[in-house]
């Protein structure tokens, strides 16, 4: 499905630009975006190296397995397919915590590491496993206590109280995260639950 969406995005945009007279912009946009992707990867390399290094210390010092044990009751409920005390749960918890505090940049390396751990117990390596879809849902609709980017944007725009949106945003994420988990469960039952 991603294949079709991807082709559709490029195709419809290019054809539209021919009638809209925006071919120059499309040409520029193509190369600019590729450059932006490279810049993003360079940024990732720095953050990934720093946080994967830190997490390896936490791993060897036994901190990660402590976190795993501590949050096992929650993890077991959310990820029924995950074996007990699996290393993925430690990374999943740190990823969720980083999102909670609005630290999107730090959340990414933990999340990627969690995905790598989940991939190791995935029976069909080409296909997203049940735990992976659940984990992705927890990320796209993460419970966020402090949306750092938006607060600093409102601050620079001269808001009287840039923090006035923190409470409604927090409440909204609680509801949307619950909705995401619910959709995940329902769709799992519809698609894969039947065959079991």
């Amino acid at each position, binding site marked *: 499905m*991603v294949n079709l969406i991807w082709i559709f995005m490029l195709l419809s945009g290019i054809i539209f*630009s021919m009638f809209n007279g925006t071919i120059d912009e499309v040409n520029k946009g193509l190369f600019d975006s590729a450059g932006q992707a490279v810049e993003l990867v360079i940024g*990732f390399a720095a953050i990934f190296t720093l946080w994967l*290094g830190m997490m*390896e*210390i936490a791993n060897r010092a036994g901190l990660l397995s402590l976190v795993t044990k501590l949050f096992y009751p929650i993890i077991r409920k959310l990820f029924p397919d995950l074996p007990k005390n699996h290393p993925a749960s430690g990374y999943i918890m740190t990823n969720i915590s980083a999102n909670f505090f609005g630290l999107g940049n730090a959340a990414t390396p933990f999340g990627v590491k969690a995905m790598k751990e989940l991939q190791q117990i995935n029976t069909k390596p080409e296909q997203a496993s049940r735990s992976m879809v659940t984990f992705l849902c927890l990320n*796209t609709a993460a419970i966020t206590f*402090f949306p750092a980017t938006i607060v600093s944007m409102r601050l620079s725009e001269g808001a009287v109280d840039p923090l006035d*949106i923190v409470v409604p945003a927090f409440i909204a994420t609680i509801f949307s995260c619950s909705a995401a988990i619910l959709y995940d469960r329902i769709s799992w039952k519809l698609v894969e639950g039947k065959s079991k």
Partner: protein
Amino acid sequence: MIDVVLISKLILPLLILTILISALVTRTDAYDAFVSGGKEGLQMAASLLPFLVGMMAAISVLRSSGLLMWITNIVSPLFLYFNVPAELFPLFLTRPISGTAALSITADLTHTFGPEHLIARLAAVIQGSTDTTLYILTVYFGAVGIKKMGRALVVGLLADLTGMIIAVVITVWYFQNIWS
């Protein structure tokens, strides 16, 4: 009020502090662990490049061709039907696709209407309470080489839509009843 900002700034340094103290207590060779753990970083980031270039190019074509704006203009009147300001529609459409585009729309709305206007607050809550689903799927699935995302995309986009509707309802309720 400022305390919340301070706490959010302190989280990562405190995390590093906790990790290092626990390394000292358990007599772990922290530097050796850091170096060997960090080795993966560059390769992991580099493996994301083709996924990111592909997705960002497609999004950029959609934006720069003017197609995204064209669709926006057609569908906006629907918003008025539901009593939601039509100015918010571009944000609804771009939020799951492009984080930077959505942020620039939110910044623009904040600038045009003023930070205390309901539209600016709605935009801020929508921006702050949802995430760029397409980008997250690209990065996380790209990192492990998953090509069949299965239910993830549909569930993610459905959650986005729900999240944005919830954000509108809660913001209107909050600023009319709680905030004064």
